[in-house]
């Protein structure tokens, strides 16, 4: 084989086109000085489709086949088959951003429905149609807070349970706006209100908390966190996800100004951490929202139609004064989440969320019966996951479990974190048995 298999030119066509352009060879069209011309090779052999598939799969097959009980901000639920089949429709997957709404009504309507889902779940007035992931969405929330609270300071407060990597993203995104990120302590897995009150002052622009938290606990005093943020004229940003929001306190009801999170809990496999950033906020911040928004309008016949709107916030128009640099977002991932949510419906989402309360409760109780394990380590309600105290060093237990075919997180010397959902529930008996082998 020579040449791109996806450039369909025959030799005769190529010749005719060269003639029309008035050159003898394609190389004449490359207006590149000789001194910077590349005349080497990459050393990559072209392959048949079959061989290229085999090469990629050969590498991936080296991954061990483990039952994953990993969460900490990235979760897997069973994805209905319908999601794969519909999202793979080539009109969806091979299209671009909806710059010409008249021929992209389908995708625009899906995104409008995705925004609507998040408005329903958060209770806030506005949701955009995706950021990259929870970490970058949180960073954008901090930047929004800095803009709308510009006169009152530069501190962002996040609880100590937030993943280091997420904090690193937040710090990187906000450093240019001279924002400082500080962690506040928590108590038994939840926000320590007194400790938070001690560090909060009028220089704070954003207070962040999660529900459920990265360690799997359900926060019990979000109203108070919201009030505290309010007292200092700071925004209250809540991190959550669409499954959790289906049963937990409605973010708007606890005073959230902004909701961020990862909606890849719907529609996506674990994907090595690929995300779908949620961004929703109160309507008063509409013109400060980062990213794309789909709005309803009418076409020339008066029929309802959808279009990207308020684009004057965006980088392609506002350049360095844009609300964000985001261009390519996670639209197709949002489409998958929307289809998954629609296929569950309200009943299905609530049922799924309730199971995410019951499964960790039941698994923790079983592990608590294993000698050398106390679970859950936090005296809290849990969602999907929990910390377990181990008498033996946690890293050694995680390594031993891995040898037995299970992946769990060792979070410090004597705590492992275990996440259980409908995706790995079938392996819980075996996990408990493995713990009995290794935890003693």
């Amino acid at each position, binding site marked *: 084989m020579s040449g791109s298999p*996806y450039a369909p030119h025959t030799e005769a066509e190529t010749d005719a*086109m060269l003639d029309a352009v008035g050159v003898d060879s394609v190389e004449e*069209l490359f*207006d590149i*000085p000789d001194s*910077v011309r590349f005349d080497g090779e*990459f050393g990559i052999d072209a*392959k048949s489709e079959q061989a*290229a598939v085999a090469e990629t*799969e050969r590498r991936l097959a*080296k991954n061990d086949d483990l039952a*994953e009980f*990993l969460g*900490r901000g990235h979760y897997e639920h069973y994805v209905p088959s319908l999601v794969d089949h519909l999202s793979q429709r080539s009109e969806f997957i*091979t*299209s*671009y951003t909806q710059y010409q709404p008249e*021929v*992209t*009504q389908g*995708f625009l*309507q899906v995104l409008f429905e995705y925004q*609507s889902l998040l*408005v*329903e779940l958060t209770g806030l007035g506005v949701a955009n*149609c995706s950021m*990259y992931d929870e970490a970058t969405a949180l960073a954008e929330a901090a930047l929004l807070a800095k803009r709308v609270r510009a006169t009152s300071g530069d501190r962002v407060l996040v609880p100590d349970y937030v993943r280091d*990597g*997420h904090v*690193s993203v937040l710090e990187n995104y906000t450093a*240019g706006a001279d924002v400082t990120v500080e962690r506040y302590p928590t108590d038994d897995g939840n926000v320590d209100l007194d400790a938070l009150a001690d560090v909060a002052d009028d220089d704070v622009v954003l207070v962040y908390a999660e529900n459920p938290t990265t360690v799997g606990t*359900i926060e019990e005093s979000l109203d108070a966190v919201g009030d505290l943020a309010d007292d200092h004229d700071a925004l209250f940003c809540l991190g959550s996800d669409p499954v959790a929001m289906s049963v937990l*306190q409605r973010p708007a009801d606890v005073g959230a100004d902004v909701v961020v999170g*990862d909606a890849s809990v719907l529609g996506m496999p*674990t994907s*090595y951490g690929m995300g779908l950033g949620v961004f929703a906020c109160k309507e008063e911040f*509409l013109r400060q929202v980062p990213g794309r928004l789909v*709005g309803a*309008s009418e076409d*020339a*016949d008066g029929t309802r139609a959808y279009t990207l*709107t*308020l684009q004057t916030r965006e980088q*392609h128009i506002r350049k*360095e004064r844009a609300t964000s*640099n*985001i261009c*390519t*977002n996670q*639209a*197709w991932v949002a489409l998958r989440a929307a*289809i998954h949510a*629609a*296929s569950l419906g*309200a009943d299905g989402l*609530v049922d799924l969320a309730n199971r995410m309360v019951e499964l960790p*409760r039941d698994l923790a109780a079983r592990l608590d019966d294993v000698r050398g394990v106390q679970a859950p380590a936090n005296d809290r*309600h849990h969602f999907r996951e929990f910390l377990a105290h181990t008498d033996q060093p946690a890293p050694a237990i995680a390594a031993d479990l*891995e040898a037995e075919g299970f*992946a769990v997180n060792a979070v410090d010397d004597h705590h492992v974190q275990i996440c259980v959902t409908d995706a790995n529930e079938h392996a819980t008996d075996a996990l408990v048995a493995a713990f009995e082998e290794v935890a003693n």
Partner: protein
Amino acid sequence: MEYYDQARYQPADADNYEPLLSEKDQTSVDVDSPLPDDLTRDDVTLPSLEEPELARHYVRLSQQNYGVDSGPYPLGSCTMKYNPRFTEDVAAVDDASVHPDRSGDSVQGTLQLQYDLQDYLGRIGGMDAVTLQPPAGAAGEFAGILLAEAYHEANGEGHRDEVVVPDAAHGTNFASAALGGYDVVEIPSGDDGRVDIDALEAALGENTAALMLTNPNTLGLFERNIEQISEMVHDAGGLLYYDGANLNALLGRARPGDMGFDIMHFNVHKTFATPHGGGGPGAGPVGVTEDLAEFLPDPHVRKTESGQYERYTPERSVGKVHGFEGNWLVLVKAFAYIDRLGDDGLSDASAKAVLNANYLAEQVEYDVPLGPFHHEFVASAGDQDAADVAKRMLDYGVHPPTTKWPELVDEALMTEPTEVETKSNLDDLADAFNAVAGEDDETLANAPTRTTARLIDQTTAARNPRLSWHDLD
């Protein structure tokens, strides 16, 4: 020429539209949970449909959407090329989808694929090291800005607070530099559509952190003075950043690293055919020279002497730009695509993309200034409104070019056919351009008429934002 009748997808009563899910059965569910009442919400109201109806809903919506598989999509600067489907299959295998917290030992396959893709991209870009973490091109730009800042800080040059950007650059360049806290110094292009050397000279100085450059630029023109530009930026103590949006025009012909660029990003959803998915996900790997490798995001992947692959934190890493490691499934697709094409295929893709752009530019009757063109060109709609021209082109069954940008060309029609169109497709595309070129303002102003929706009122959408079904009557 004949109309392309998108309306055929519509139901018989064509003024009907696909109803929103909210207009189908909505169910309000009281939340009854094992949790205490004060920790839960009262109810959730969402549509409730059975699977057959949902399947038809989304299939009908897909039919109201134009993709690369529907027809030509010459959207300039976006490289809308055909997405081969086998890459979807490899991204869907179970082993592609592991949790990001898995131990390195247990995901040797993932790490090897990351390592090999880093290696492929390094070779293609002429760069010494590559991070795969940025989840999109703009995120890659931002990562590049962080790298430049870390580099200058490490060299005691932290005072450099300006990033120079040509006026023809993508909007993301400006926004990414600003996100990093830099002042943007915009420079005008010269009469030849390329970097104005005098303007660049005037803009560079002791505060210059970097010049962000697209080459070929957004007019499709190769910056022939790239070596001089590189020397000027480096003499001023700045770094040269390559915006990879137009890399499809150079594959196998020139490499950013060889031209003097210190940092670059790749848009794998453009150059390496991973689907744009209606606006994402993409992936924006960033390549750097050896001097900058120690600053790359955390984690990076290397091969040990024993042949194992491991994650590590580069010595002076800038930290993270994504919560985990970016849009992994997109990167798997990019690897499979590069592996399929190899040297010959990549080089030929570039050749045909450039040939197609020049051929189409030749066939279009609108004024096409400058040239020769790399994989895109910018025509001027002259007396016609470029946005109206685009709407009218929809009636001829093709996706229109990017319009009104770059602003250097009046009523710009920025056109990038890519390598995947045949000569006859290009002739059809040219026919669409040329048919519209002869039409009167009223016809244009009333277009499109043959699409799923007719001309959509953007003004009302912005003045009276209705952003969810809760805002509808």
